[in-house]
């Protein structure tokens, strides 16, 4: 429980307060501009241009959904979470560190079949020795230690990385598992980076 509530606090701290835009254009006009701006995108990339329901609602509400709407989003996103077949949530932290460092994959100039990384350091401070970290997300130094390495925190961490919006609607963090950026196995490696006692994150 403690781990989960801490996660929620960190998630809230990560959400920037955005200025409310003035709604003076019909969404259908915006969508027609969007469609024409990606008219030459390959057919198998077109789905990325179209928003899913969560993206549409979060955009419309400027990432600040009222409680009832937030509940609906979180329920929908919770339903996407798939756990590893063997039930093991803690993988290999060294593989996790490599995935956390890797910012490749999924870009239009990446060769097809480029393995995607999580690029965690782009936004988060993690292992103390890595000083090239971003500040868009909260620092995660000592993450597992702060949560007493509890099994509840391990599960919450897996779910957070799999789909950040299952616990925090309209979070800025990507839904790595739900959007198939990372595999369940890669996510267990990242869980290990955060929750393994031997991981540099907890040293």
């Amino acid at each position, binding site marked *: 429980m403690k781990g989960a509530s801490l996660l929620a606090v960190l998630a809230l701290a990560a959400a920037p307060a955005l200025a409310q835009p003035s709604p003076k254009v019909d969404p259908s006009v915006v969508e027609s501009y969007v469609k024409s701006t990606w008219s030459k*995108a390959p057919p198998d990339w077109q789905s990325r241009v179209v928003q899913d329901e969560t993206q549409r609602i979060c*955009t419309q509400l400027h990432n600040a959904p009222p409680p009832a709407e937030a509940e609906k989003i979180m329920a929908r996103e919770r339903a996407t979470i798939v756990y590893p077949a063997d039930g093991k949530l803690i993988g290999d932290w060294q593989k996790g560190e490599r995935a956390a460092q890797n910012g490749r994959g*999924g*870009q239009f100039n990446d060769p097809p079949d480029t393995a995607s990384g999580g690029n965690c350091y*782009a*936004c988060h401070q993690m292992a103390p020795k890595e000083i090239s970290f971003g500040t*868009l997300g909260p620092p995660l130094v000592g993450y597992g230690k702060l949560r007493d390495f509890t099994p509840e925190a391990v599960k919450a961490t897996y779910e957070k990385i799999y789909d950040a919006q299952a616990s925090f609607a309209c979070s800025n963090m990507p839904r790595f598992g739900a959007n198939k950026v990372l595999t369940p196995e890669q996510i267990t490696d990242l869980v290990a980076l955060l929750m393994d006692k031997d991981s540099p994150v907890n040293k």
Partner: protein
Amino acid sequence: MQFHPRTLIGRLLIAAVAIAGALGSSALAQSDEETEKALEKYRQMLSDPFSNPGYLAVDRGEELWSRKRGANNVSLESCDLGEGPGKLEGAYARLPRFFTDAGKVMDLEQRLLWCMETVQKLDTKDVIARRFSAPGRDSDMEDLVAFIANKSSGRAIELALAHPKEQEAYAVGEAMFFRRSAIMDFSCATCHAEDGKRIRLQALPDLSRPTKAAKETMGSWPTYRVSQAALRTMQHRLWDCYRQMRMPAPDYASDGLTALTVFLAKQAEGATLDVPSIKR
């Protein structure tokens, strides 16, 4: 001419990377700081018309502007960029804007393509294919933008937004700025709606509202990108942002990118242009 900036800068960058690598990861903090300091010195060294390689693009652009081309065998000198046919001074500072003859809001690159097609009767297929330069492949558009934008250096960005189509473009641009999409759920606002944030060690300007950072950003494009050894335009900047957002490549000179540029330029209203600048 024997001066090859691409090679020269490439060598300097390779040297910088080699030094950073040799220091190892424990010394990276210091070396990053030193690299940044060295780059700042380098920027200062190059940010005058006689040594910023972006000015080679300005010179090439000037030649292209007056070169007779297309089925009509005329130059672009009668092209109206909004201030009257052939009038370049201050034109870039007021773009994008609505053009009655085309019936739409255009940024500089859209307008140049329109002038090539209507004034010169030039087939722009090749020009569009070379929209972004690469080693051994010059870009007419980058060169023309460098030349024309430079004619607004010292001028303030000023978008009237008087025409309803300009107002629509602004509203659409704002909506696109906040629109989340693709496999990472990113919008422009994910990275550019708060002051003082970084991605890795790179500072991120807040472009979501009128800020000092928005002025500095929009007042310094087009720019010579040292890491790419090329003059780059706002079209290229947005194309590269969407790459990082895991979106498909946006169409060059599309109305959506122009709308986004209207929104961004308006957040920098009053910023003094100093272009082409030089950046990392």
